[in-house]
């Protein structure tokens, strides 16, 4: 059985997205926040997805900031004035710096979510990425616990998170050794934005030449 499938009591294979639909529609399987999350987001996307036209999608995507929460339903204010309702299920993978649970989600957080559109207009989420950013930057300063980065015409403070922040140099394996970072390097920073102070917790910094 693939990682992306479970089975019904009758023994039929049930794809993850089908499971999500059933979970959200069934209601009873939507569980409390403490039991949510920590699933592998990569597994949510293992099934081939047909694609014929850029205007046609088989799953739904949402982005914006979390305006409120009603149990396992997130109310999201989109960046273009639209609104979304994101249903968390016990199959939803949640990322915020690392795989986590719904307990880590706070009002004001930014969010990207992908899942299955439900008849009531909500989205039953396969995966939710909270505050995730992936920025192409230039290293402008290096401190003991932070990097000063230029992103376009703006500056970003990247926080080094002990035990979490890692680096990759010239395509090499990830390492916790940040000593080879240099001012002026182009860098790709994957991390989590902190709405409270507008800094970014660095998960991974990749530098090339």
């Amino acid at each position, binding site marked *: 059985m693939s990682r992306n499938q479970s089975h019904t009591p009758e023994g039929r294979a049930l794809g993850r997205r089908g499971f999500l639909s059933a979970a959200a529609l069934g209601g009873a399987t939507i569980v409390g926040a403490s039991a949510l999350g920590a699933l592998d987001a990569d597994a949510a996307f293992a099934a081939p997805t047909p*694609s014929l036209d850029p205007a046609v999608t088989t799953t739904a995507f949402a982005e914006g900031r979390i305006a409120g929460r009603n149990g396992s339903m997130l109310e999201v204010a989109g960046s273009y004035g639209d609104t979304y309702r994101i249903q968390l299920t016990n199959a939803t993978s949640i990322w915020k710096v690392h795989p986590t649970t719904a307990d880590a989600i706070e009002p004001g957080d*930014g969010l990207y979510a992908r899942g299955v559109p439900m008849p009531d207009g909500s989205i039953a989420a396969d995966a939710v*990425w909270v505050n995730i950013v*992936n920025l*192409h930057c230039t290293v402008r300063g290096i401190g003991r616990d932070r990097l000063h980065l230029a992103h376009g015409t703006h500056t970003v403070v990247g926080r080094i998170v002990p035990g979490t922040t890692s680096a990759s140099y010239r395509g090499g394996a990830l390492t916790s050794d940040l000593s080879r970072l240099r001012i002026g390097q182009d860098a790709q920073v994957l991390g989590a934005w902190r709405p409270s102070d507008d800094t970014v917790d660095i998960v991974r910094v990749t530098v090339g030449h």
Partner: protein
Amino acid sequence: MACGSTYLWRGETTWFCCGSAWGPCGSAGGGACGNCRSSANHGAWPNASAACWDITRPDLCGEGGIPRRGCGAVMNVKHQCTGATVCITITDCGPRTKSFCGEQTCCNGECRSNRILDLTPAAFSAIGSLSSGKLPVWIYE
């Protein structure tokens, strides 16, 4: 416009944000074509124009043959291992291939080299997890 199945290129794709957005992405703007949105299935191509090529310089990484595809071009992007696909429209210039020459992304023991495509969060998340940061892909048109 529908996506096709004629091979165009292969390599790594990363993701980026554009258009109105939250956090540091709020300053990203609409990209080289002016209409890029994180919530749409959009992408950035390193040879979207001559000026774009001068910034990305994939030729410095041995990817000199990447064809010119400008704003509005449509591509089908397929994850090398899962087969998951997404149909995108080019709305920006990128990624900066020359800054990461030789970088590889692998799955099932097969690797793709060099960043030759940037996807919006909507497009990237249709074929992989945003937390992975990059994926090995084949591109068709």
